[in-house]
């Protein structure tokens, strides 16, 4: 029998391995597709790996619509490559399918399409709408007396959408303690730094003012993410939010903190360099 700390150590190691795999998939997919969004996919890779491989999402890949499943909503739908990679790693479809991203006829659309991809909960891509859908699912869970949890991942720029705050208000009004919002706080959007374009800060205090229990986390420290997600899942009587500090483009040196890599595919030498950096243990 492993002791608790030993079990955790094995878990962390497993999540880290998956996170590395996610990053490689993302770069390969976007590179092959010739378009897509690497920056925000890489910043959310550790969060997704922790959710999908840290025991936070009870799912049945062979039965994607299993009624008791936990729900994950990628509200920042442009990070679809990260979601698809996690779903493939979790066994919802073959990893070979990943390289069809954005191709004509592919089940992997440029932005998540729940009618086409097993494991995708809702269709997103138009920012600001995921949290409202999460509120609906969590509300249904309460109405039906089900034990599932709903996790919603938002971008920090996305928090400029008024609809996010309409949803935040509703979630606390209905005391949805089966709902957790995670903000991928990478400080960048397309045109510039979020603080420069239109500051949504202080995001943590805003959620808290709307009646949420708020946690802050280092979005690239797996142990920290595991701890915080566990705490968030035990909050009672109100929804919880995790503001995860991240680096856009995390894992590929030349993409880190560069707004240019929000929605651009690496080509030729860039692609090779990125994959080389992501191979093996090079990743910090």
């Amino acid at each position, binding site marked *: 029998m492993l002791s608790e700390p030993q079990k955790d150590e094995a878990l962390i190691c497993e999540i880290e391995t998956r996170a590395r795999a996610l990053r490689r998939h993302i770069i390969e997919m976007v590179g092959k*597709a*010739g*378009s*897509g969004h690497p920056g925000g996919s890489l910043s959310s890779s550790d969060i997704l790996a922790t959710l999908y491989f840290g025991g936070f999402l009870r799912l049945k890949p062979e039965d994607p619509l299993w009624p008791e499943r936990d729900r994950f909503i990628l509200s920042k*739908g442009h990070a679809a490559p990260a979601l698809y990679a996690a779903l493939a790693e979790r066994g919802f479809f073959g990893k070979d399918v990943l390289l069809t991203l*954005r*191709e*004509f*006829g*592919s089940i*992997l*659309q*440029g*932005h998540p*399409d729940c009618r086409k991809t097993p494991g995708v909960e809702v*269709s*997103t*891509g*138009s*920012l*600001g709408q995921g949290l409202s859908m999460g509120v609906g699912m969590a509300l249904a869970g309460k109405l039906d007396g089900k034990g599932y949890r709903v996790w919603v991942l938002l971008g920090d*720029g*996305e928090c*400029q*959408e*008024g*609809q996010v705050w309409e949803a935040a208000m509703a979630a606390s009004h209905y005391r949805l303690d089966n709902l957790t919002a995670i903000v991928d706080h990478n400080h960048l*959007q*397309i*045109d*510039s730094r*979020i603080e420069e*374009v*239109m500051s*949504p800060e202080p995001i943590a205090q805003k959620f808290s003012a709307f009646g949420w229990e708020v946690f802050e986390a280092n979005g690239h420290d797996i142990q920290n993410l595991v701890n915080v997600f566990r705490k968030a899942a035990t909050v009672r009587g109100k929804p919880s939010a995790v503001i995860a500090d991240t680096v856009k483009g995390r894992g590929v040196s030349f993409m880190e903190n560069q707004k240019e890599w929000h929605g651009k595919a690496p080509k030729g030498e860039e692609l090779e360099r990125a994959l080389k950096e992501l191979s093996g243990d090079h990743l910090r």
Partner: protein
Amino acid sequence: MIATRDAYGEILVELGRENPNIVVLDADLSSSTKTEKFAKAFPERFFNVGIAEANMMGIAAGLARSGKIPFVSTFAVFATGRAYDQIRQSIAYPRFNVKIVASHGGLSVGPDGASHQALEDVALMRAIPGMVVIVPCDAHETKEAIKAALRHDGPVYVRLGREKVPSVLPDDATFEIGKGLILWPDKRREDLISSVSRGEPKESAHLFDVAFVASGIMVKPALDAARILGQEGKTCLVADFASIKPLDEELLVAIAKNSRLVVTCEEHSIIGGLGSAVCETLAENYPRPVLRVGVRDEFGQSGSAQELLDAYGLTAEGIVETARKGLSKV
């Protein structure tokens, strides 16, 4: 080859220089809508409101009420879908002078897929009372349309595209809100209309076999379709109806009176766009068989622009096929 959104970016700077009342708003897509050019030239008259389209339309309404002339840009799906109610209530109902210029219309957005491909934007905007709706076919027409939008006092929706497109119109082509253009054969709008008022054509043998009524990036394939059918001995007319609302009803009826079949061509749902507008006008004024080339009650999907246009039949071949089908019945 130049994308209509690039032409918009350029003309906006030119107009901004002449008219200090012009202000520009964007929702974190200035690098895609090309309002970044204006932002660079006139930073004090540019407002990046962040990813908050609904809020952007409200701010534009307030600016217009205060005498500014706001040009508001984002992707067509978000401009017309996300902020529909704000456009309707805050801008159109009070008839505020706001120009909504949206990029990334239609399927040719490509790999981003259905969530980013506006196929109902024209239908939505056309339904709003008083809204002018323009879908230019190339860079030249875009610039002329933006100038016309500025001259017009009231809300205007202009739909632009992402992809580079060939120039279709001659450099001296004019654009007027509510006027169509005959591109083929070489005939002036006014001449066709006056010939009809003289009771021509007198014999059905003088009718065009097919008249193509097109907008946006479908104007070029409509011209190609006319050429292909011409080689088979069919006579065709091609008209550019960039001004979808108000529609050039006078020209449209004259075209119908001169043709055995009308085929509409648009990069939009056949529900509510140019095809619908043409059917409505002809049904009331001069019923003629009309076939609509466009997207048929479906969403788009990922793929390259060309793959998608091929798959949905928005090509010269697709238009020819539709025309042949129609001709076999009239």
